[in-house]
């Protein structure tokens, strides 16, 4: 689709992922056994035929650049400059919450001035949303409604949105009101899930005039100009979770063990792409016992695993028990150790005969490289 440009935004200041984003940008937080958060937004765009995509990065760009490369793994071509990694995160103001920070767009003027004449719309997605969503549905709706902007929302959203939660009131598919609601949400509220379609001229016009507006948050500007703009609201039917806290990260991980959700997210014809690694197949040993778990390649399992997500090259030693856990890449769980309700970041080593138990509500977070 050559008349659409995709923008994946950086969302650092609405996240509360603690240790998980200490050494990496939020885009590259590992999830689901082998993925990074950004894989979902990027794959959705590619699967919807969008092949001109800008990803707004952050100061911590190394892991992002390393993960995306030239985009080949997402079927994006280096030759035709399908993927650009854009400057980002230079303008975070402490204490101020922006949902879609336009300063990041302004910093990449060159990207926007080079955009092809035939482009009609931008699709903007957050980098931290877990969904397998055919964006063409929202784009078709946008066309049908002849809208300037189409915001995607979820009715009865189950996740948590920190602070600047956006509630849409719609009538006949058009957004009539945008309300910020920090904590009080009615059960049938329509919650905006950081995904929208916007006409090229409208966005470029806003960027031109952003200095005269009171805010650099695109959502503020839409809110303040609802009368002047034709804003449609599209209901997303499927699963969606914004990963903005340890709680939402853990819940979403456990959701993936639900076969319905797993099928929707990961077994779809619309594949979620990620960077390939040369690992051997997962190795199960004589006494391994694994139930209801997602297990990636390169793992070596001698102990017991239940309701867990085991990332690439993790090792579960003889007699170890892992339950309700997210065990990231190259972690080692020592012999006869027990780990329950925990998230282990990359390279964590748990010795023999240790016991670590968190709760479902507050899972333990073990930071990268820890040795316990």
């Amino acid at each position, binding site marked *: 689709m050559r008349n659409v440009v995709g923008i994946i935004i950086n969302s650092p200041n609405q996240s509360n992922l603690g240790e998980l984003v200490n050494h990496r940008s939020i885009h590259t937080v590992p999830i689901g056994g082998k993925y990074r958060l950004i894989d979902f937004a990027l794959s959705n765009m590619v699967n919807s035929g969008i092949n001109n995509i800008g990803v707004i990065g952050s100061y911590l760009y190394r892991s992002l650049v390393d993960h995306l490369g030239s985009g080949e793994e997402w079927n994006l071509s280096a030759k035709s400059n399908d993927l650009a990694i854009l400057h980002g995160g230079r303008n975070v103001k402490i204490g101020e919450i922006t949902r879609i920070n336009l300063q990041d767009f302004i910093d990449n003027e060159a990207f926007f001035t080079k955009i092809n004449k035939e482009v009609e719309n931008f699709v903007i997605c957050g980098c931290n949303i877990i969904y397998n969503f055919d964006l063409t549905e929202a784009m078709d709706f946008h066309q049908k409604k002849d809208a300037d902007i189409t915001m995607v929302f979820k009715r009865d959203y189950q996740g948590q949105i920190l602070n600047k939660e956006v509630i849409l009131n719609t009538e006949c598919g058009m957004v009539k009101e945008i309300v910020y609601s920090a904590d009080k949400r009615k059960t049938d509220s329509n919650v905006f899930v950081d995904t929208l379609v916007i006409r090229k001229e409208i966005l470029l016009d806003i960027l031109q005039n952003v200095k005269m507006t009171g805010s650099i948050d695109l959502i503020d500007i839409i809110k303040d100009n609802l009368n002047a703009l034709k804003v449609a609201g599209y209901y997303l039917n499927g699963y969606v979770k914004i990963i903005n806290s340890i709680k939402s990260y853990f819940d979403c991980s456990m959701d993936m063990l639900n076969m319905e959700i797993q099928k929707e997210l990961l077994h779809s014809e619309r594949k979620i792409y990620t960077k390939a690694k040369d690992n051997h197949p997962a190795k199960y040993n004589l006494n391994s016992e694994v139930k*209801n778990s*997602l297990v990636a390649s390169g793992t070596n399992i001698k102990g017991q695993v239940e309701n867990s997500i085991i990332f690439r090259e993790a090792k579960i030693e003889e007699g170890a028990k892992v339950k309700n856990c997210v065990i990231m890449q190259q972690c080692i769980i020592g012999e006869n150790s027990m780990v329950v309700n925990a998230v282990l970041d990359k390279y964590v080593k748990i010795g023999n005969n240790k016991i670590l138990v968190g709760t479902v509500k507050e899972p333990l977070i073990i930071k990268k490289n820890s040795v316990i």
Partner: protein
Amino acid sequence: MSNQKCIAMLLAGGQGSRLKDLTNNNAKPGVMFGGKYRIIDFSLSNCFHSNIYTVGVLTQYKPLLLNRYIGTGSSWALDKLDQGVYILPPYMDKEGGNWYKNTADAVYQNIEFIDMYDPEYVLILSGDHIYKMDYSKMLDFTEEKNADLTVSVMEVEWEEATRFGITNVDQDMRIIKFDEKPEKPKNNMASMGVYIFKWEVLKEILVRDASDKSSEHDFGKNIIPTLIAEGKSIYSYLFDGYWKDVGTIDSYYKANMDLLKSDSALDLASKVMRVYSNNRNRQPHYVGVDAEISNSLVCDGCLIEGKVSNSILSYEVTIGKNAVVRDSILFSKVVIEDGAIVEKVIVGENVTIAKDTVNGSVDSNEILVIA
């Protein structure tokens, strides 16, 4: 084209009919091995680790899938400027075209390709070997001995020795005699079919051999014996790692099962000489609530709800509830429906094993192939 010290020519062979239905739609080197690999991954990965970045793959049997799989060799980090992996099928020139008659003839017909790189040495490899080998050490040995040809050998069981080419050497490891499949072997040092030739020596003998109507144009039967007879400087290089020829269903099955041994000499998990492959992007495999898996290899994209033991599951295999898989090798996208039993079977790509059927037996002496 930059001159290169050594380039490799990989004999991908003909149909590989001894692998039966596994090569119905695929040349032998393209057959799945160890769940996620294909046989050719081992040789190509060895080349990368040995700093040999140019590999010609000689094939004329159904090269399409192999061609797609190899691409430019980027999966093995062999896609360097002016280097890479090239599928070399037979072609026509002004004088017309010829199919490859045998191993030596295939290399002969690609002299022009080799000359483009103007190498000092040419490494000859076979497409159906499973091993990790650093050819650069063999090349160092070849240079040290100033050999015209070095033959890589390994110790085999005495009773096996009759199946191989056996090298007899002097104290300096120089080969004084080469017995192809001797009835009474004088020793148990068997040729692995891995050779390093000086290119000028190889080119000269290939040209001569091509016009020799009595020759079968085979490296083992014709080229090497002729060079020995002519008194060329030919050395034996001892390799002592894991090596297996997987040209038959039996040896193929055994080599796969070797991967399940906890003390397997072929350590796929090791970062040393890591085996690369053209990875498929599939989700992590899911293990259901009632599944039982032991002593097995499982690839991405599998969905396992039944019982699996002593088996190798390639990409996207589905094992239904109460299904039992033992001592078996399942290729990608195999579906074992609920309640089916599969024992000592190799199941080819895309095959579905129907509900509640019984296939093969652990007690059978034969490996059943369903493809």
